[in-house]
């Protein structure tokens, strides 16, 4: 069977593996050594996926399944142990860290953020009112950012990131904390970003959020993709499994998991393109 060539790919994750070396805990019965013993943690065990323009992709999985690691690798914050990530433009990441410069006011943080994403001072001044309106923080915008709640901080960062009109946006559970009043506003902005043929990755362990906001969902389990399909389908299977787990019905959960795995076929990425052509194109882009 020959599949058609995917021409509108925005993010390609090609067999990414991530191995962390972490310091082992005491209590394994061995004598304490002078230096810490490192053990290996396989956070990602060969993840491949192709994201197309206009897709909003949810990444599901319980804690420690590797979702955040995958997002950080797509963002380019750390290089994978093996494998590679290609993207059509530099992804913009929205993490859960509380404040940019905690001591500074929201306004000064906005300006700093706008300069960081590469705006000139003039462009930053022009974009300011729009960002402040989207953030909708009222008088709090003049307070130091360390006094913000995590939801307020997330909103401010989202507003800054949206000002850059990112082509690829990566969100790490940040927006799930918004309240009803501001959620409508950011939903609207999300829609605009999506219409600009952008690609959004949204990491969450709440199936509900994924189902509402995404077109496609990926289920990550212990560092491997075990399901990839329409958001409602993946999210329902995940919710069913999570419910069984929560109730302690391990057997049932195992059945769900096995079923999900049996229906999934792993993806292998093949980059179809003469090499010299790509380098020329990449050079022309600069």
């Amino acid at each position, binding site marked *: 069977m020959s*599949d*058609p*060539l*995917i021409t509108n*790919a925005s993010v390609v994750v090609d067999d990414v593996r991530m191995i962390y070396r972490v310091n082992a805990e005491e209590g394994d019965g061995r004598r304490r050594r002078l230096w810490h013993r490192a053990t290996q943690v396989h956070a990602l*065990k060969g993840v491949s996926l192709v994201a197309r323009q206009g897709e909003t992709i949810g990444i599901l999985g*319980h804690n420690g399944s590797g979702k955040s690691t995958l997002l*950080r*690798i*797509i*963002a*380019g*914050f*750390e*290089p994978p142990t093996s494998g*590679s*990530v*290609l*993207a*059509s433009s*530099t*992804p*913009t*990441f929205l*993490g859960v*860290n509380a404040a*940019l*410069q905690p*001591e*500074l006011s929201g306004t*000064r943080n906005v300006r*700093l*953020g706008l*300069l*960081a*994403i*590469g705006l000139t001072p003039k462009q930053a001044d022009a974009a300011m009112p729009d960002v402040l309106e989207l953030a909708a923080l009222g008088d709090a915008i003049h307070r130091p950012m360390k006094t913000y709640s995590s939801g307020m901080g997330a909103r401010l*960062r989202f507003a800054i990131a949206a000002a850059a009109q990112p082509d690829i946006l990566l969100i790490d559970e940040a927006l799930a904390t918004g309240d009803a009043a501001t959620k409508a506003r950011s939903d609207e902005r999300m829609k605009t970003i999506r219409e600009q043929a952008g690609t959004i990755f949204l990491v969450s362990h709440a199936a509900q959020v994924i189902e509402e906001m995404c077109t496609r969902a990926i289920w990550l*389990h*212990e560092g*491997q993709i*075990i399901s990839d399909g329409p958001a409602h389908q993946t999210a329902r299977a995940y919710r069913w*499994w999570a419910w069984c787990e929560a109730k302690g019905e*391990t057997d049932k*959960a*195992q059945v769900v*998991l096995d079923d999900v*795995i049996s229906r999934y*076929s*792993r*993806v*292998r990425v*093949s*980059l*179809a*393109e003469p090499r010299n*052509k*790509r380098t020329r*194109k990449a050079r022309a*882009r600069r």
Partner: protein
Amino acid sequence: MTSVEYIEQPTVRTEYVDARGLVPVGRRPSLHDYIADLWRRRSFIVADSRAKSATSNKDYLLGNLWLVGRPLLDGLTYFVIFGLIFGARDGVENFVGFLLIGIFLFGYTSRCLTGGLGSIASGKNLIRTFAFPRAVVPLASTLREMLSTFPVIVTMIVLILVIPPHARLSIWWLLFPAVFLLQTLFNIGVGLYAARFGALVPDAKVAISFISRLWMYGSGVMFSIEQISDGHPLVMAISQLNPLYCVLELSRDLLLYEKPGDATLWVVLTAWAVVTPVMGFIFFWHGEEHYGRE
């Protein structure tokens, strides 16, 4: 928790992707692109350094007065210990001025070293939120030190003019800004080196206080190396290769002793001021992929 074995032989589906227009993510850009990108963010460097200076010393009651207060108290301590008790002031002309210049100017480089070391850690929120050339962070840190050192230098000049035996204005004072410039260039390089070490080796923070102290004694901040070693040729030759020794000796000659300073020292200092930032920049750029690590 239910778990799965590594999926051995599942069905595999191949996706053929047209890779034109796709570029690797998180890879270190070429040095040329990196510098160009950095140049575009120059206003970000300035903004970040301002943000930093607004927050440092904020927790103290006296705030930024400590920029001057700290070296003054240091000076007093060293004056008592080295000047009076160990007798380092014997044979040193204008020991008070000698000591003040030593402490204030050494402190500049020492702060750049410490600032650079912690810069990646303190900038981690920005680094993990936005994509920009990471060299912005240590450069902003050194820029902030430079800006906050201006009032410190003014204080130093006032002090050496006021405290007897007063230093006299001479034509050679005009060369002092050159020394300051060379020291600043050197500090930029030091900050870049320190930033990568600090980001990769957490233990560097512990080591730095020893290194910094060793460097301070080795640069003759509070005593004259020439006197202590009786002008031993090997000791003097090694000292003259130390950029901070050059900074201190030249500044003292220019400001206190109405001399143009030794030509060898000028050459050595200039070499350090050119080589260190260039090598430091390349060294920092080499680690570019790793600064966002948790």
